[in-house]
């Protein structure tokens, strides 16, 4: 289940077409030595690699997610951010991961943050929108909750903790606050919103902790990759190693698993 919830991610300044191709290959073939493994939910790349990623995962059911809106800082003008989103969607992105304007948020300009998310949501058209709060820059749980509420009210399909560029990234307490925002919204309106913790979740054990928390807070309906994702690059290998260990009874070494 964890494997099928992963957004396999490469978001480096040094990304190349080759790196993205390799990532997509990994997304399709997690570990061929074990038959019957699922694929990951999506690959997550920068907008300029969307077209390539889309062609690499064609006919596999794997979605292509693209970060946009001047990721990771979000410091740019709204027209440019919207253009960023449109470009990614036009190139075939199924999902858009946007960042909120944390500067504006801290200044108290909550209306701007709301309007921006709404505008991006509109630009996404059919693509699902994930809103990155970058909780590591928000400071307090109260602010995380407020940002979650704003994002949900503005039409987010998913709320996501972090870009992965800032430490601390996803933590369990922060994720719980966001899950509760989702729960309260669901209780009030009956609408489901997805959750994506990202950054720093690199072991199968920790992933399991998160899943338990999701189930306890939101219920089993959220335990599918339509409503829950892990943003991670190294989590997949650890889960694979645990699966192989479970099957063979022998502790595994990273030497025998693909690097990306």
């Amino acid at each position, binding site marked *: 289940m964890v494997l099928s919830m992963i957004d396999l991610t490469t978001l480096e300044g040094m990304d190349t077409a080759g790196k993205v191709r390799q990532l997509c290959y990994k997304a399709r073939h997690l570990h061929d030595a074990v038959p019957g493994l699922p694929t990951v939910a999506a690959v997550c790349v920068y907008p300029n690699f969307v077209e390539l990623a889309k062609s690499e995962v064609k006919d596999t059911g794997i979605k292509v997610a693209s970060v946009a809106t001047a990721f990771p800082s979000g410091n740019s003008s709204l027209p440019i951010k919207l253009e960023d989103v449109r470009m990614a969607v036009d190139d075939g992105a199924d999902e858009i991961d946007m960042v909120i304007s944390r500067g504006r948020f801290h200044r108290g300009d909550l209306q701007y943050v709301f309007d921006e998310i709404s505008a991006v949501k509109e630009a996404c058209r059919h693509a699902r929108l994930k809103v990155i709060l970058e909780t590591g820059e928000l400071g307090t749980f109260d602010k995380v909750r407020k940002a979650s509420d704003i994002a949900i009210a503005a039409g987010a399909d998913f709320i996501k903790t972090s870009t992965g560029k800032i430490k601390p990234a996803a933590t369990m307490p922060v994720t719980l606050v966001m899950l509760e925002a989702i729960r309260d919204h669901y209780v009030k309106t009956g609408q489901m919103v997805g959750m994506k913790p990202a950054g720093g979740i690199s072991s199968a054990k920790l992933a399991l902790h998160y899943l338990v928390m999701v189930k306890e807070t939101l219920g089993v309906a959220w335990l599918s990759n339509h409503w829950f994702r892990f943003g991670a690059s190294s989590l997949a290998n650890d889960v694979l190693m645990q699966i192989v260990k479970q099957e063979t009874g*022998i*502790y*595994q*070494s*990273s*030497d*025998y698993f693909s690097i990306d």
Partner: protein
Amino acid sequence: MPTDSANNDHDPDDSLRLPILKTYKLYIDGKFPRTESGRYYVPEVDGDALGNICQASRKDVKNAVVAARKAQSGWANRTAYNRGQILYRIGEMLEGRREQFTAELLRQGLPATQATHEVNQSIDRLIYYAGWCDKYQQVFSCVNPVASSHFNFSLLEPTGVVFVVASQTSPLLGLVAMLAPVIAGGNTCILLAAESKPLSAMTFAEVLQTSDVPDGVVNLLTGNPAELGQHFASHKDINAIAYDGADNEYLKTIQENAISNLKRVQNYQFDWTSDTCGNPYLIKDFCEVKTTWHPIEKISASGSGY
């Protein structure tokens, strides 16, 4: 609250005092955890219980391997000179605690002469391998003659993570004599101490922890070799195994389980007190030869390459 009846000038009679027994724990990643299994055993010498000793489980082995793996590249990338300094430092720290180690060896049933000898030789062996750290590479590496314009050379690289089943009869020297060459070559290791004489090993861990040895480079476990054999031998993240002992059945178990990732398995049946048992070939036993072909012009007047 001080009371009038307290007489601080007078030491209480030693015979009235209850001795505080030390708890010996495992040494993993620079820390001293108890075994995660919660199992203990009590080895005895002539009816005298040595203490509650952790009986390491498969999971403890796994945790130690994770620590050793994490530490390996950092340790291998230390300069040879620095590794030598650290080995020398272990020797220095051991020297300062000679009496404690001698007493502990006596408690574990060694005769007095052998106890002193073990401690002295352990220190000497550490100093000996400290010296080899920045020398074995020059002795074992070579430039190879090849029939093309290449500079072709072979040098040693550490094998990686080494699991050592230490001597059952020589609780300190047997441990040190295996540990020193393994880490001198840039490996990290997990050592399984003598099951019936585990005290020296765990006290030695205290020496290691105060000797600039980075966390995870040496990990020490106590427990039953027979129980753990299959687990460490099959663990895919262990690259080599050293077994000090003469049980051929046990060796066979190790070898069979080591096949899955082609671990290097070395068996030693040495009398470690012999001077010839300290030698650089033990470093080489836990190294891999890497050969590099470096393209060159033919530059010498005689027409040869290098």
